[in-house]
């Protein structure tokens, strides 16, 4: 198997194979905590860190682990990483840790992480695996923050409320009030809002994709480009 170019790793993680919008993986935490930008960012960063670390470690040990026992080993690696991150969050971001609650330890069961370990990290060099983990994590975190922003602005009429949970006391007044005396649209905050919001975001991504496709179809492909995309 030839090495994946870094450009493709970045493009896959952020757009073409985005964990939330294309693979539709790890939806449970995505839907559950994306009710505000800051909650989404907190979980997004934790996932990002987990993915990068677990991909790195899995890639480091990939030649030592026999295929028969690889999955239990990956799970142990991921669980250890998540436990360390959870303890660190509890120590340094205690309030955020309380809000995100069970969804931090649940990152262990997030399918994106085992999927990247199995599909990418166990077959690639450390640097590539780490890049893939970081980019997949970033793609997931961006999707979370986008959905969080959509739901928070519709549901509460604010953005970045409680920013101090992630950025410290200095961020207390970062809250942007979009609409004064907003009534609140509870649906956006409640679980249905997460499903509808994610559906709309996926639809927007598909529209953009089909638009790009139509554009590139109009332009006559050069022979070597056609070969590269095949």
């Amino acid at each position, binding site marked *: 198997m030839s090495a994946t170019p870094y450009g493709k790793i970045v493009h896959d993680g952020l757009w073409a194979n985005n964990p939330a919008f294309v693979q539709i993986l790890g939806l449970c935490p995505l839907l559950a905590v994306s009710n505000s930008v800051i909650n989404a960012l907190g979980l997004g960063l934790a996932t990002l860190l987990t993915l990068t670390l677990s991909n790195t470690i899995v890639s480091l040990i990939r030649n030592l682990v026999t295929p028969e026992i690889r999955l239990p080993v990956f799970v142990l690696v991921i669980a250890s990483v998540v436990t360390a991150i959870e303890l660190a969050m509890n120590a340094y971001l205690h309030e955020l840790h309380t809000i995100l609650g069970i969804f931090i330890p649940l990152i262990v069961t997030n399918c994106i992480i085992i999927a990247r370990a199995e599909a990418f990290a166990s077959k690639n060099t450390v640097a590539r695996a780490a890049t893939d983990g970081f980019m997949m994590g970033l793609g997931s975190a961006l999707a979370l923050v986008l959905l969080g922003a959509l739901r928070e602005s519709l549901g509460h009429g604010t953005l970045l409320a409680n920013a101090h949970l992630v950025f410290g006391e200095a961020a207390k007044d970062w809250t942007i009030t979009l609409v004064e005396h907003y*009534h*609140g*649209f*509870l*649906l*956006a905050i*409640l679980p*249905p809002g997460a499903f*509808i919001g994610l559906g709309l975001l996926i639809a927007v991504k598909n529209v953009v994709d089909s638009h790009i496709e139509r554009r590139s179809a109009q332009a006559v492909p050069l022979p070597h480009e056609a070969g590269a995309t095949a």
Partner: protein
Amino acid sequence: MQTSSSPHLHSAAPVSSVMLRVIYALIPGVIATIWFFGWGVAVNVMLAAIVALASEAVMLAARGRPIKPFLLDGSALVTAFLLALSLPPLAPWWITLIGTAFAIVVAKQLYGGLGCNPFNPAMAGYVVLLISFPREMTQWLAPETVSGHALSFAQAAQVIFSGAAPPGLTLDAVSAATPLDTLKTHLHLGETVEAARRASPVFGSLGGLGWEWINGLFLAGGLWMMYKKVITWHIPVALLGGLLVMSTAFHLFNGDAYVSPAFHLFSGAAMLGAFFIATDPVSACTTPRGKLYYGAGIGILTYIIRAWGGYPDGIAFAVLLMNMAAPLIDHYTQPRVFGHKK
């Protein structure tokens, strides 16, 4: 354009004439609702109709579908009517706007438009409003005979669009919880049904004051639709039967804690739900036996939600839940094809 919910059960009547008859059948009940709860109902109906037609036109244009035939089929109007009749009579304008737009844009057009929506659009819009704006959605009006105030059309429109009460009148003076809501509150405090009915003026001899007439006239409109073969008897009979059986059983078991079956049949959206909402040809079951299960399911769920749930009325949730089950019910109740063994 012709309706045919399933290829093997075909109706020759065009959509527009069906929808027109549904609207005719609604009229007596609408008049009764206006009679008891004032002109706000009429303002809501008109506003919902305008929003429904506008959002339908915008969505059809965005989806590249012909606008005129779909707009004139009346299905958007029926959705608007059903939703507006479920709203509090003086609901702020944006409530009607958001609910109707959600019903048409999300619950109907995003699923593919008329004939493709798995959920009843009006009830999806209503539930969105109910869970998003619980305060606005539970502020009902006392019947005008109780409050002693009759708002003129202009006054009602003023309250709806500006939120301010006309001079010399506070909104608290005219608003009251619905009978189902009031009953629930009293029962929650450990009082008996009889004590609750004595304590509040919103109860009538059968159901809620005014509500019994409104339900009676929706019943009449529904019977007319059956006579005209717009709907079949299966869903309404099964729905009301389910509600009746459940309420009778529990009323006989403990009359102090469970209100009489007549109250259940003539309160809230019982008749509107049985004849107009649950019978939506798109989202309901299509086989005759399936319709019976579907209707009975709605009736039983409505009773469960009314008696033990967190919301005073349960028709909307019950309809949406059974909408979800409808394809499965249809799958298991296909009629035997002539000449074939099952």
